[in-house]
């Protein structure tokens, strides 16, 4: 190891792409705040961060989808501004998106070549187009019929076709935005082989993935973003996993110490109390591309925290329990009785409520009033023929507006006009109105201000006090530690730890999330 292969390009002083102090604001949010980023030829550079860190905004700034408010983008040392992906591509920056942005209804050849197709007699020369695309594809060791329809192939192959399209334009820089999220192990290996080939030919590659294993396997350099800000740029070989995870997740300034003290004091009381009954138990719950066979049990009145990175299976598991997605196999029982959770309706019948992480698109119905949103699940459960009397509706709305401190002019105001935190509270009120036995909260505190956050945490704590089970998901480990009686750690779609929350530290959790194994000083397996 006199000279690691990565150091040669690293010392190259001339980056292909150099983004300096890039800032982008959206109404109400500073999506990127003076972030700098570089890409070197012949190097794979991974971009890391949790939800809302600004990864996709940075990529879209580079490819001209978003225009930047301030900052400079240089390509080969020259200042550039792109007004769209077509321009960026013409300049040599190609992008392969997570959802394959190709046309499944056209042939493979067209997907590789369209936009710069060979012509003859004023029309497309299909023969030449098929020949040329076959050459490019075989360069990636992909031997498929270029005349076949794209959607007759697997997602992995479509992903490689997208890369073939991207490199055919003589890309200097290639952006791969979560290319592996839907691939299996062998397919990932195939993709990495292609990436290495490209890297050796001098292309600068930006790689985004939630899987740390893959990041460490393929990248030479890492850049971490958090909440729209640059945490740092590191050489992969110099950064320990635990430090990486810590950089991604960060440490929240603890302004919620009171609450924490409160929780921990009662924590002990509960530990002393009689062992409570198991409410829900999942056995070998599986869904392809979401989670590997997984066991989970939640007691009555217990708050279970799900810790793990984005894509670790945390949301996927929650959606299965909430009946939002269907499991391929496995069994869930409530109070020991096997139950079917194939639709949200069935889950609600068993008093299991899932509050989605996508507040706007899957949570609130934004054109309806606060009152209508609060009673929606309760009303849906009763059926349309048994309307909740108007007086009762008003009472429900008024009591939740007060109890959750929802800031709204009145119950008739449209939810659309409320702030994010208040929308979240409306959504919580909807679920509380059906008096759930298990409340699944998927990132209920994301993107809301610190005051609302504290209120929601306090609420969760109070609910569990009254015997409700809670499955709590958050990217902020402090929050998970503060609220949970027990913590389940997921990593790469598998459960890696299930341990009671007594004296667990953020660092210990970070280790589990990063390494999948406990740090030597901690013990796991208290459960089972």
């Amino acid at each position, binding site marked *: 190891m006199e000279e690691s292969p990565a150091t040669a390009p690293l010392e190259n002083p001339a980056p292909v792409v150099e983004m300096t102090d890039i800032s982008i604001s959206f109404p109400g949010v500073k999506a990127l705040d003076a972030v700098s980023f570089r890409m070197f030829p012949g190097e794979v550079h991974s971009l890391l961060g949790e939800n809302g860190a600004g990864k996709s905004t940075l990529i879209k700034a580079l490819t001209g989808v978003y225009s930047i408010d301030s900052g400079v983008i240089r390509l080969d040392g020259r200042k550039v501004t792109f007004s769209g992906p077509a321009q960026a591509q013409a300049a040599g920056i190609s992008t392969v998106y997570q959802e394959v942005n190709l046309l499944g209804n056209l042939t493979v050849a067209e997907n590789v070549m369209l936009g710069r197709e060979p012509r003859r007699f004023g029309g497309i020369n299909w023969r030449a187009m098929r020949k040329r695309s076959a050459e490019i594809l075989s360069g990636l060791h992909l031997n498929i019929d270029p005349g076949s329809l794209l959607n007759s192939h697997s997602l992995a192959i479509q992903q490689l076709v997208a890369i073939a399209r991207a490199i055919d334009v003589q890309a200097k820089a290639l952006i791969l935005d979560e290319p592996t999220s839907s691939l299996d192990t062998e397919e990932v290996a195939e993709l990495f082989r292609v990436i290495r080939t490209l890297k050796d030919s001098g292309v600068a590659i930006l790689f985004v993935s939630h899987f740390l294993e893959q990041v460490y396997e393929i990248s030479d350099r890492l850049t971490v973003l958090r909440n729209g800000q640059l945490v740092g740029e590191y050489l992969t070989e110099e950064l320990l996993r635990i430090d990486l995870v810590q950089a991604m997740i960060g440490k929240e300034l603890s302004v919620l110490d009171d609450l924490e003290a409160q929780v921990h004091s009662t924590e002990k009381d509960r530990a002393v109390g009689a062992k409570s009954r198991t409410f829900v138990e999942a056995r070998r719950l599986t869904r392809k591309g979401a989670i590997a066979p997984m066991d989970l049990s939640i007691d009555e009145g217990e708050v279970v925290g799900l810790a793990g990175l984005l894509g670790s299976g945390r949301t996927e598991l929650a959606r299965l329990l*909430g009946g939002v997605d269907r499991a391929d196999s496995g069994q869930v029982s409530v109070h020991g009785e096997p139950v079917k959770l194939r639709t949200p309706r069935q889950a609600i019948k068993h008093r299991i409520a899932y509050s*989605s992480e996508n507040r706007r698109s*899957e*949570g*609130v*119905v*934004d054109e*309806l009033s606060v009152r209508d949103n609060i009673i929606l699940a309760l009303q849906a459960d009763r059926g349309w023929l048994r309307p909740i009397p108007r007086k009762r509706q008003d009472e429900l709305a008024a009591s939740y507006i007060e109890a959750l401190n929802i800031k709204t002019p009145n119950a008739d105001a449209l939810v659309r006009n409320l702030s994010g935190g208040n929308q979240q509270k409306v959504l919580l009120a909807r679920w509380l109105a059906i008096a759930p036995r298990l409340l699944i909260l998927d990132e209920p505190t994301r993107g809301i201000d610190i005051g609302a956050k504290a209120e929601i945490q306090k609420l969760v704590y109070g609910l569990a006090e009254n015997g409700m089970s809670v499955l709590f998901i958050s990217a902020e480990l402090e929050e998970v530690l503060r609220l949970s009686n027990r913590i389940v750690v997921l990593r790469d779609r598998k459960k890696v730890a299930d341990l009671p929350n007594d004296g667990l530290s953020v660092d210990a959790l970070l280790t589990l999330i990063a390494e999948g194994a406990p740090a030597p000083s901690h013990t796991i397996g208290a459960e089972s």
Partner: protein
Amino acid sequence: MKNVLNRAVGHRLFWPLVMLAALLLINVIAVPGFLSITVNSEGHLFGSIIDILRNGAPTLIIAVGMTLVIATRGIDLSVGSVCAIAGAVASSMILASPTPNNVGTVTGALLTALVLSLGLGLANGLLVAGLGIQPIISTLILMTAGRGIAMLITEGQIITVNSVPFAFLGSGFILGVPVATVAGVLIFALAALLTRRTAMGLLIEAVGINPEASRQAGVRARGLKFSVYALCALLAGIAGLILTSNQTAADANNTGLFIELDAILAVVIGGTSLAGGRYSLAGTLVGALIIQTLVTTVYTVGIPPIATMVFKAAVVTAVCLLQSPTTAAALERWRSRLATRHLQGVAAKAGAAR
């Protein structure tokens, strides 16, 4: 005062009502006695306004059903054909009966027609909610085949019906008010009660605004969609019977021709977005009245009545362009530019004063 005005202008029914008032005004200017209502010797009401209310009833009845369908992000193109089928069934049953003037015969015929209409609506519902086929396409099938079915029933003839009880539906009076108008008002009121006194309206709106959020909240969209398509077809059947009775003949080709377009137009003018979601039955009522008044206006002003369609085209275009997000964005830019200019003006004045 200004606040009240602002709120009135901001109300979703403001522009439709202005349009209706303007149309009525044109009529009043063109025909001085336009608003007068006379009572004839039998105590029946007559006048242009009564005509509008009677002739607009079938469109209104269908538009009520269409409103609910559109609120679920759907559309029903087949209502015109269902009109024709209902008319054809009732007429041919009455014609075949030895006692066409018997109330029982007519009632039986009407009920048969309505049950059949309901069945057709369920078929639409099956395609949309059961098989998940796009609403435009699902209902296009019945729109195409329906006229053929109607002709099959009438055997390609225009069936003239001479039945006193049946004629009552289209040209009779109840307490001096035309039966069609009474039916329209009753159906409108019943629909409003059905959707707003139960939770149906709320759930329909929830599904139309955000299907996925509604699903996660446990709303059963499938049953709702079945119900609204069935209801829409049932109402189309009723409208078809009124139309047929009014013409005293079932014409498989022309009964309810283009009425789906009028109904959709009424819904859109009334402020219910074709994208689904929040709906306004009151808006639909105003929309249906506007369309019928427009037709009447074209007559009274002396424009060839056949030119009505050009006006309808103008109205559709205007409404769509007003609802367009592009227009909204352009207006917003224009407004903010005005505002800055105004501010600059104020600042300049302030500077000058100093």
